[in-house]
């Protein structure tokens, strides 16, 4: 072990017997780090090296926005203390990989150093999309994915009088919220008719749109970007919309999705499409080379309603867990994600989803949507023709993951779900009893007579969940 560490630090090549054991992970995001941790749990000795050029330590990518907003500093976003890595024998190596010699099992870094590997795990994440707009490479035009992106955003949003954010997805609204926290007026350009409408049904999309406007954001739906304008010195001075309108601004956020970060592997023997092609065990076409997280593309989607590329924190974690199991076990398992879940926060409104709720109702399925009078709390329940629960969207109402994981797995009928919602609620104590309002609405709409569950005084007093 010690011998090995010295070798990595001096950047030289290992003797063959050490290389054959060395597991090298490119990328220190949630996928790579989860994989490393789980390998270490199962094997105390195997040498593990995590490579990243971005930052020395693992940080929570989803928390980048909070650094900009002043809620936290960078060090608060690190899920593990800096001494964790050494304690667990996880070698960290900060460098950018410039190429991989798969035939000789060697990595070449940008500074010319090389490193051998026994098994290679690619967890390189994503890069923000750009669609060839004129001016998209100007100074002050960027996406938000990496820590360097955050530093760049900090630098380019000083003393500007307006910012424009393009793209109606999760990173877009995060960027808008960040800019709002600094009192920078924002124009938010969304091409689609509804916010995030490739995921959200109309009612939910409208709810979020209303809330965005409530934060004094100049939200423009069904608006397209035509070009980004140069101030003559290589810096952005505004944007031109497809309808010809020009908006002056000092910063443009391009948040029109992300794509697997695989440029290093293009033109090598590694099989890629949009991402690195893998089978259900994350095996690429090259032996001892695996890909997980955002950069991996399944040849066959891991389940009905699942995509070939999963770019979510939670799936990255599951990829890492599963691959680590396979690397350390003779009997291989294929990646079988359970009931889908995801969450986000749109300014002040939290969103959770369990199961699969498509934006457009499918033939035969039926749905119950309830929104409270404030217009900021909503719950959608989706059922199939057999009255089995398929999924939910919850806004401003925290829901218990275990409850819906079970209810969806077991396919509970609508009445059962509705009558047990009080057990599902994960809102803090003393919050409004939303399930009562929902039951009233459900009874009215469906002509049912489900009773609001009563809790005795004692049950209330001791906070019993039953």
């Amino acid at each position: 072990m010690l011998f090995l560490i010295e070798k990595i630090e001096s950047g030289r090549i290992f003797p063959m017997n050490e290389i054959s054991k060395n597991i090298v992970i490119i990328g220190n995001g949630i996928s790579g780090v989860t994989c490393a941790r789980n390998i270490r749990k199962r094997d105390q000795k195997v040498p593990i090296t995590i490579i990243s050029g971005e930052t020395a330590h693992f940080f929570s990518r989803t928390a980048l926005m909070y650094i900009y907003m002043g809620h936290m500093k960078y060090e608060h976003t690190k899920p593990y203390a800096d001494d964790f890595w050494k304690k667990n024998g996880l070698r960290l190596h900060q460098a950018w990989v410039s190429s991989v010699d798969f035939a000789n099992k060697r990595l070449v870094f940008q500074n010319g150093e090389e490193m051998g590997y026994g098994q290679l795990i690619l967890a390189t994440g994503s890069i923000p999309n750009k669609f060839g707009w004129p001016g998209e490479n100007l100074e002050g035009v960027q996406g938000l994915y990496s820590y360097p992106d955050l530093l760049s955003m900090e630098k380019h949003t000083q003393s500007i009088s307006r910012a424009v954010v393009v793209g109606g997805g999760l990173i877009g609204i995060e960027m808008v919220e960040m800019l709002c926290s600094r009192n920078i007026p924002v124009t938010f350009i969304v091409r689609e008719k509804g916010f995030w409408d490739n995921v959200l049904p109309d009612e939910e999309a409208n709810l979020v749109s209303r809330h965005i406007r409530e934060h004094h954001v100049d939200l423009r739906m069904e608006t397209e970007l035509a070009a980004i304008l140069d101030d003559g010195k290589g810096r952005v001075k505004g944007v031109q919309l497809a309808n010809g309108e020009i908006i002056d601004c000092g910063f443009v956020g391009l948040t029109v999705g992300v794509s697997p970060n695989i440029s290093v592997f293009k033109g090598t023997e590694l099989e890629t499409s949009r991402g690195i092609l893998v089978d259900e065990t994350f095996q690429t076409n090259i032996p001892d080379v695996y890909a997980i997280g955002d950069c991996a593309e399944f040849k066959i989607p891991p389940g009905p309603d699942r995509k070939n590329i999963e770019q979510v924190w939670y799936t990255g974690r599951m990829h890492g867990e599963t691959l680590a199991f396979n690397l350390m076990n003779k009997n291989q398992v294929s990646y079988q994600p359970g009931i889908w879940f995801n969450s986000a926060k749109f300014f002040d409104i939290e969103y959770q989803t369990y199961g699969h709720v498509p934006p457009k109702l499918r033939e035969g399925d039926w749905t119950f949507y309830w929104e409270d009078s404030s217009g900021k709390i909503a719950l959608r329940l989706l059922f199939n023709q057999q009255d089995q629960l398929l999924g939910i969207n919850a806004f401003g109402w925290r829901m218990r993951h275990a409850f819906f994981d079970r209810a969806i797995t077991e396919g509970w009928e609508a009445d059962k779900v509705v009558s047990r919602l009080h057990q599902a609620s994960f809102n803090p104590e003393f919050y409004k009893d939303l399930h009562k309002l929902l039951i009233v609405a459900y009874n009215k709409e469906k002509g049912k007579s489900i009773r609001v569950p009563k809790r005795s005084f004692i049950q209330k007093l001791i906070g019993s969940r039953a």
Partner: protein
Amino acid sequence: MKFLQNTGLTLFVIGLVIFTVIPLLGTWKLESSMVAENTKEMHREVMVEILDPMYDKTYHSHFAFISDFYSHFNAYNDSLKAEEKWDQVIWDDYAFPLTKRASVGPVPSSPLLFLFLSIGLAVLGGLLYILPLYRNETAGIKNDGIYFSSMKARGWLGIVTGTYLIGFYIILYWYPEYLTNLVIMVDPLSQFLSGGPASQWFLYGLVYTLAILVMGIRMFRKYRGNSYQTIRTVSVMFFQLSFAFLIPEILVLFNMPWHDFKNIWPLDYSFFYEYRLEGMLNSGALGMFMLVWGILLIIIGVPIFTYFYGKRWYCSWVCGCGGLAETLGDPYRQLSDKSLKSWKIERYLVHGVLVFAVVMTGVTLANYFMEFGLLGEATNQLHSIYGFAIGSAFAGVIGTGFYPFMGNRVWCRFGCPLAAYLGIVQRFKSRFRITTNGGQCISCGNCSTYCEMGIDVRWYAQRGQNIVRSSCVGCGVCSAVCPRGVLKLENGEESGRINDMPIIIGNNSINLKS
């Protein structure tokens, strides 16, 4: 709105400056009748005599007055000590009452005016600043810019504030004679409530209560929409105003001992001190009730309530120290240290203080019942060490003075013996836990950052584990700041409360235990 807030800030600063300057105003002139009035009969003759050189002299600063007083007073005591005439040495503190009595000038002649100009303006200014906060903003987490704030992120404003607080506590505990004008200023209020003159502790109680009330209103603004925070804040405001401030003063009005019914031993470390026991035993039925109630709280109240609700029922709903931490201290909650090392120090310290308090009380009670000379010596020694090191230096100077440096729960986390006791019950026999919601954690770190007790909440949440920690005071802020709805404070069945080997929901490939 900005104008109102700026006016408020200006008024607050003016009030604070006047408050700071008041002790220096006026002149000091001692007369022999004043000495006679303010000394015990056994010391009267001597005191009147030794202070003779001071009479009818006008001092233009209290520094000169107090230093002159001590030169005469100490000269007398020192000569007795040199001759080892210990029984004649005067151990009583006459500096405070005599400085207070000798003060002449604007403050004694119009105390209410100065009360308004100092504390009054500060409260008014504070409210003017706080009430318009977040107006026209939607309900939600208001943590924007905290780490850019000089006040809240250990910048120069924070350092100045901490230094001021530390200075105030040092003077309050050990040099109260320098604060006498401030005490004179609140005399009329004390007369009104308890029928007696104010002490420095009345002044402190008043400022403390107003700080909780005004900053409690700030909590309503900041956590608008969060019912748990609102109700909890109402609770600490209520208990401070009634139980800790008004009721004890009213008891005094009816010739009862000053007593805070919600203060529990060993936080109330003097509960079993001889003078307290005598005070309660000599006060009839109500005094008896105080004694029985106090003991019931210790042996039944704490375990039962903590079993059902966790230690939060006391620490963040009732307690005065907790009340100040949760209101005045809220802007500093993110400054607590989350490292493993500080957790280790915390466990040694807080349990060490608990052991100290228990041993001291044991010796005190043994002495009380046995009246054994040697034990009496030990009792006095222990009391003075505890009172100085824990009661004053730790709980006051460090506990509050260090808000802007180490967060708002330094005392509660590292020092409070009652918190240690409550914590042991909470850890081993309670229905309270913070539930982690399946696999929804994104490791963002907001929960850990804003935990005032320095618990690395994320460490549990990201592995799908419930948080069961003896130090958790159940403030609920981790749950409030969580962007993904992962944390919920709840009381529930004991089974499954501590899940050391959690399974993160969502991955059916393997049964993964983290």
